[in-house]
């Protein structure tokens, strides 16, 4: 559905996206992750044909985004960042205008507009001026616009940005219901969203692709699981003994030791990928005669992976 090869975009003196290559297969929901300024929006603009790449190429639905722009535009529903809309139009009127631009007409157009308004829960504001709508409603009108022509590919730039939790869940359900029928590329900062929704994650940082995998594989393979240990021991000694265990990468300071039992030491161990040193920890505790009252393995979340990848990259 999407085939990007060495996609590069330079703005005056600044490289926003650097030789990004990836493929998206039909029917997949792909999450696009990356810290602020990573180049997500820039990539999406290039894929939608709005901006030409500085070098490299991309095709959408088999059409080149640069030379076959109109065909590409017919194949996508694009929702830009910040949901730009005509503020002097009413919600329904706007959607009808957009539907007509996208080639729908007559009764079919009116039916489709009603349908997407229902799907995105904007029926209640259909007669109001878009300029007077709250951010969340504008966001939903923009999403409805992207859905209008039932395009094979949806490119959504932070679709749930600014929505309340109930709405976020609804939008997630909506996108999930489109799975299989439409391919979706969405960018987001909410990592649970990716875990809950996406078949694949593309993680980019400073314009370069860091990871391209399923959310599960990413969290499994990246060395980010944490082990919480609470012992009754001398802290320096405990740290030394635990750090020496195989599978432990380093010991991090727990977030806060305020109000803690002074006799007890609580430590967080960062583990190597796929390692589980819980039994060795309890052996050490037994051997040294330390009381052990917490031993908790927390599997890595995507968030850890994300923070880890970003910081790893900075160190390089």
């Amino acid at each position: 559905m999407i085939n990007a090869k060495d996609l590069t975009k330079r703005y005056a003196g600044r490289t926003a996206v650097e030789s990004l290559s990836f493929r998206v297969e039909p029917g997949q929901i792909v999450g696009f992750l990356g810290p602020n300024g990573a180049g997500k929006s820039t990539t999406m603009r290039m894929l939608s044909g709005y901006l030409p790449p500085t070098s490299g190429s991309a095709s959408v639905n088999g059409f080149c985004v640069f030379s076959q722009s109109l065909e590409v535009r017919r194949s996508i529903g694009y929702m830009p960042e910040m949901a730009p809309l005509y503020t002097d139009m009413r919600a329904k009127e706007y959607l009808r205008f957009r539907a007509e631009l996208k080639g729908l007409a007559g009764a079919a157009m009116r039916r489709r507009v009603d349908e997407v308004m229902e799907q995105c829960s904007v029926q209640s504001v259909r007669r109001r001026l878009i300029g007077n709508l709250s951010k969340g409603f504008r966001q939903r009108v923009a999403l409805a616009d992207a859905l209008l022509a039932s395009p094979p590919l949806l490119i959504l730039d932070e679709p749930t940005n600014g929505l309340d939790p109930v709405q976020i869940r609804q939008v997630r359900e909506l996108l999930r219901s489109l799975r299989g029928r439409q391919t979706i590329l969405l960018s987001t900062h909410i990592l649970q969203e990716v875990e809950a929704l996406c078949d694949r994650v593309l993680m980019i940082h400073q314009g370069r692709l860091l990871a391209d995998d399923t959310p599960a594989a990413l969290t499994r393979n990246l060395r980010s699981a944490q082990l919480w240990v609470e012992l009754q021991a001398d802290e320096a000694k405990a740290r030394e003994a635990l750090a020496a265990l195989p599978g432990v990468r380093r010991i991090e300071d727990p977030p806060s030791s305020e109000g803690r039992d002074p006799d007890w030491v609580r430590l967080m161990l960062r583990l190597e990928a796929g390692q589980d040193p819980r039994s060795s920890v309890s052996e050490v505790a037994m051997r040294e005669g330390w009381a052990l009252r917490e031993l908790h393995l927390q599997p890595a979340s995507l968030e850890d992976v994300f923070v880890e990848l970003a910081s790893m990259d900075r160190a390089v």
Partner: protein
Amino acid sequence: MRLLWILLKKELRSFFVSPVAYVVLALVMLLSGYSLRAALSILERGPSEGSIVQWMFQPNWFWLSYFFAFPLLTMRLFAEEKKMGTMETLFTVPVETWQVVLAKFSAALLVYGLLWLPSYLNFELIRWITAGQVVVPGGALAGSYLILAFMGAFNLALGCLASSLTSNQIIAAVVSFTLSLLHFLAGLFIMVLGRRVSESFVDIISYFASMEHIRTFSSGLLDTRPMVYYSSLTLLLLAFTHQVLEFRRWKP
């Protein structure tokens, strides 16, 4: 064609939901009222060589309304889309850039045409009130509106270009006003200069001088040269506008 019509409808609609169209309309009505009074007072003084139509399009009042209309009608067209980011939604649906340019330009031209409707009604009113004593020559009237349309198209195209260059409406308005005025003054300058130098300059003058064009056409004489001049400039400016909008898509 269908897309052009959809876009045009939307542009016309935005003119009339915002106060801009009404403000310009009121302004032009007011100023053309003053022009008419000036024209009538000239006729009152006794027999004159020109018709009321000719005197109507001479006073400064007329030129004032003429220059104010263009920036006000065009400043919004592209600058606002840029500012609000709706360029991105507009150019990711299957429309061609030239369709957008043409729709916006045509909408401005139609609203501009509407501006001269009250002045036409004024003429009809005068004809009716004076029971035909004040002659309103039909040919002169048609000629005046014809050249106004051509001059308007040119200045509106200038405004479109100015608006496509910036995301700030005020800057767009100032640029378009300045360029229109410069074009007018250049014509005036050549005209005055031409009179001084030699009569053979008159031919060249008739190409540039808007004042001269109005004078000719409002006396009922149709000259194709200004029409060609204005329409080719209009096309050129619209082509520039198109290029400015496409610039984004140029390969660096």
